[in-house]
């Protein structure tokens, strides 16, 4: 006889009793209730039958030969600890002890003989009702688990797999028993800076990951187009505000690390403090949350700005979500800030922060399940300097095309923009220009250098030309902060002044040429002196200021300051490599 019938239609009951008479009586009653019944005459046989038939209900006598009812029940519960199958003891032992022992052995109830058929059937019905409820919950729980797994897969597989620089940045992500919406993104900017985000969406499971896809798309696309970090944060906030229901939002810390500026830009909206540690593990900077989580307000609060700090190459930026601080142990204690800082310092000295910290947390929690995701990003401040290819271009460009490059023909297209007064504070023209070029000429690797040239020239014209800031301020760490504060202040109150940008594009046989001209309203400077200073400084890369121009000088084919330094012209030529 094949045993396993369609379980959805007919329920199976197993009766274990050494009295054939009792088995018969109970079988008849169960059959009347629509059960299909199997019987066993001792505990050991009962266990074997249970394994074979996986019944929906077990009725168990207590005193039986070979193996008694309690032992058989314990065995059965041991075999399938999460089984939905209720087990009821049937006995004539009418004592408190028998009742207690029944429950201790894993029984779900006890029926004391003698009982009427009506009482028996009522008992079976009630126990089956509870069992049905249990299986319903189990099903819901499984569905929820599936949703959570899907959310987790979406985050790690689809979204975070495109992260940049994972050989240097260490990312720890330990999802809670029920995935809780932590997200980690790292993206390379066109000028070689790195943008990093650690976020924590409210809620659990799939609900917490609704915002993840638009967030990662926006963060990546805007970073790659060269938008400034504050523009990106603004956009992310507006997007999440439109998209998410009121009680869903994103706590996040944003960081941009600029190796060539030797500075880090930070913004913390609703996460625990972010840190910058030095090589010895001392805390150099700590950044508290200064803004409500994103997606709560339609716009960022007025005066929202990034914090800018100078960094050394050996520094590390460390971001954490509240899951670390709130990790708990069985004693009801929380891991907390102090333990985190201690372990972080130890980890930095050991040069393996992520590992040391996670071990410490694991030890503290001692196996307790966590309610929230635990996540951390540890980013080195150095080692990001983009390799600039300063090949001798005269040699690589063939004679014919070189000649063509310097022939004064009319450009294929021209583009120009004049920003005056307040629009200088509000508009970053570089992404606009890059967009323009990408649309006309298509995407290409060589635009990265052009992006850097444009950014540096624009920042120079704005900071030193229009805003009249002295770059010598940036030579010290204190001056550095002062410089950016002053810049912000002057930018806010800017009424006059202009920058005129124009691009002339010439296509060549094996590449192209762009002539970039920037004219600013400033007083100009002694450009000759600037370069003389540079050549006299042995290690220019150690200077905090003036690096921009040095970089442009390396990247462009010619760089010329005119009209006493208020006009700059850079020529950028590239070749399409044909192998």
């Amino acid at each position, binding site marked *: 006889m094949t045993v396993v019938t369609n379980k959805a239609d007919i329920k199976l009951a197993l009766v274990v009793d050494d009295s054939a008479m009792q088995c018969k009586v109970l079988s008849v009653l169960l059959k009347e209730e629509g059960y299909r019944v199997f019987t066993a005459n001792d505990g050991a046989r009962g266990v074997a039958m249970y394994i074979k038939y996986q019944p929906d209900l077990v009725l168990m006598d207590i005193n039986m030969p070979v193996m008694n009812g309690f032992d058989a029940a314990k065995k059965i519960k041991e075999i399938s600890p999460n089984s939905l199958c209720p087990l009821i003891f049937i006995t004539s032992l009418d004592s408190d002890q028998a009742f207690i022992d029944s429950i201790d052995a894993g029984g779900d109830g006890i029926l004391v003989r003698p009982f009427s058929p009506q009482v028996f059937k009522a008992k079976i019905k009630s126990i089956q009702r509870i069992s049905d409820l249990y299986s319903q919950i189990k099903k819901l729980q499984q569905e929820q688990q599936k949703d959570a797994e899907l959310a987790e897969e979406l985050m790690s597989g689809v979204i975070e797999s495109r992260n940049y620089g994972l050989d240097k940045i260490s990312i720890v992500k330990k999802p809670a028993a029920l995935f809780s919406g932590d997200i980690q993104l790292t993206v390379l900017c066109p000028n070689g800076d790195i943008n990093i985000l650690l976020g*924590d969406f*409210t*809620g*659990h499971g799939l609900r917490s990951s609704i915002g993840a896809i638009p967030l990662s798309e926006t963060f990546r696309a805007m970073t790659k187009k060269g938008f400034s970090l504050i523009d990106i944060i603004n956009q992310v906030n507006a997007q999440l505000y439109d998209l998410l229901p*009121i*009680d*869903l*939002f994103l*706590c996040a810390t944003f960081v941009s690390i600029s190796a060539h500026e030797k500075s880090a830009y930070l913004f913390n*909206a*609703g*996460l*625990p403090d972010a840190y910058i540690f030095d090589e010895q593990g001392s805390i150099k900077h700590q950044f*508290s*949350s*200064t*803004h*409500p*989580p994103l997606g*709560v*307000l339609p716009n960022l*609060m007025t005066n929202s700005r990034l914090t800018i700090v100078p960094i050394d190459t050996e520094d590390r930026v460390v971001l954490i979500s*509240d899951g670390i601080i709130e990790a708990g142990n069985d004693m009801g204690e929380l891991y907390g800030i102090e333990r985190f800082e201690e372990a972080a310092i130890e980890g930095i000295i050991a040069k393996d922060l992520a590992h040391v910290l996670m071990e410490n947390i694991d030890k503290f929690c001692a196996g307790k399940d966590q*309610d*929230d995701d635990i996540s951390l990003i540890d980013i080195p401040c150095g080692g990001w300097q983009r390799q600039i290819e300063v090949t001798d271009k005269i040699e690589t460009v063939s004679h014919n095309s070189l000649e063509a490059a310097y022939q004064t023909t009319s450009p294929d297209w021209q583009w120009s923009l004049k920003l005056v007064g307040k629009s200088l504070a509000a508009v970053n023209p570089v992404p606009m220009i890059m967009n323009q070029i990408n649309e006309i000429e298509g995407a290409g690797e060589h635009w990265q250098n052009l992006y850097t040239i444009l950014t540096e020239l624009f920042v120079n014209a704005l900071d030193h030309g229009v805003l009249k800031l002295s770059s010598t301020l940036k030579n010290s760490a204190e001056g550095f902060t002062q410089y950016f504060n002053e810049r912000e202040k002057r930018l806010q109150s800017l009424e006059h002044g202009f920058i005129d940008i124009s691009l002339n594009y010439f296509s060549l046989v094996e590449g192209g040429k762009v002539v970039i001209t920037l004219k600013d309203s400033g007083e100009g400077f002694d450009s000759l002196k600037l370069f003389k200073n540079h050549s006299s400084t042995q290690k220019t890369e150690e200077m905090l200021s003036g690096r921009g121009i040095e970089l442009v000088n390396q990247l462009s084919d010619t760089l010329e300051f005119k009209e006493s330094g208020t006009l700059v012209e850079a020529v950028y030529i590239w070749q399409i490599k044909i192998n």
Partner: protein
Amino acid sequence: MAVKTYISDDNKHLSIQVDDRFDFSQHQHFRDAYNKFTEKGTLFTLDLSNTQYMDSSALGMILLLKDHAESIGGEIVISKPSDSVNKILEIAQFHRLMTIES
């Protein structure tokens, strides 16, 4: 029950107190506590003096209450948050969104 409500005699002031843990498990109780109050200009006081723990879904629930209060021209005030709760409100910078009385 962990969510208690007190209504002023003039029906213009509803005080909601959440004891012990303020997390997602209180979602329904918390909603039920204020949903029926649609009197124009009602002041909602959220008393968190007995709240030991609060998670981010509780922050979400507070935003829902704020939205409800504002939709009927009312206001929300958070009253006497305990130290641990205040820390969480501070990280989320909620004092910039609503009044928090210590």
